[in-house]
């Protein structure tokens, strides 16, 4: 079946504008993660959903960042009043229903955000 899908694949925005990034996990996947990958750096954990609840929001960098998930499907990551330091690749990953929680994640190809 289809993998994790993220849109847009690339987004260029002006400083101060709001952006919304979308993640469509694999159908039936209950766990969903968002990570940020800045140029030359590792993956930075942002938030994790189990179903539509977020047990761990500890990675969100500031109150400009928020994320939602509807049921066990689409998730959106919203960044308000974007800053240049928000430029990064935003990765989404999911894990299947019935899989043990230590099962590997399936990653999307990411959204490359550039704030000018």
């Amino acid at each position, binding site marked *: 079946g289809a993998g994790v899908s993220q849109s847009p694949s690339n987004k260029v925005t002006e400083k101060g504008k709001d952006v919304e990034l979308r993640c469509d996990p694999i159908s039936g996947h209950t766990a969903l993660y968002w990570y940020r990958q800045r140029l030359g*750096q*590792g993956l*930075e*954990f942002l938030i*994790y959903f189990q179903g539509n609840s977020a047990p761990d929001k500890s990675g969100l960098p500031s109150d400009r960042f928020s994320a939602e998930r509807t049921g066990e499907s689409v998730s959106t990551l919203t960044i308000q009043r974007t800053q240049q330091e928000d430029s990064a690749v935003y*990765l989404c*990953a999911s894990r299947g229903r019935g899989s043990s929680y230590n099962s590997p994640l399936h*990653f999307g190809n990411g959204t490359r955000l550039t704030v000018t």
Partner: protein
Amino acid sequence: AQSVTQLDSQVPVFEEAPVELRCNYSSSVSVYLFWYVQYPNQGLQLLLKYLSGSTLVKGINGFEAEFNKSQTSFHLRKPSVHISDTAEYFCAVLGAGGTSYGKLTFGQGTILTVHP
């Protein structure tokens, strides 16, 4: 809290030479360990994982890793690399309890470049 340190940001190596990519972790609870690989212009994919049992685990493409609990390490090795192994490699730990339960933390990544 948990953290992952990949000791080398870049590793250049000649084709058919052996390679070791180092990973050390810190966690207050038990962890599960993973290596993911990101080939150029592709998404992250699982290379191998350690959940329990034998501390030497084998993954795809001839890679293996050894879990050393006393040294809190999970180094990745391959006895003979190919040009096609050129990629970025990420070590990751998944907390098995406490506040780290379900949280997958990545290292900064190691770029492996295989030269002919």
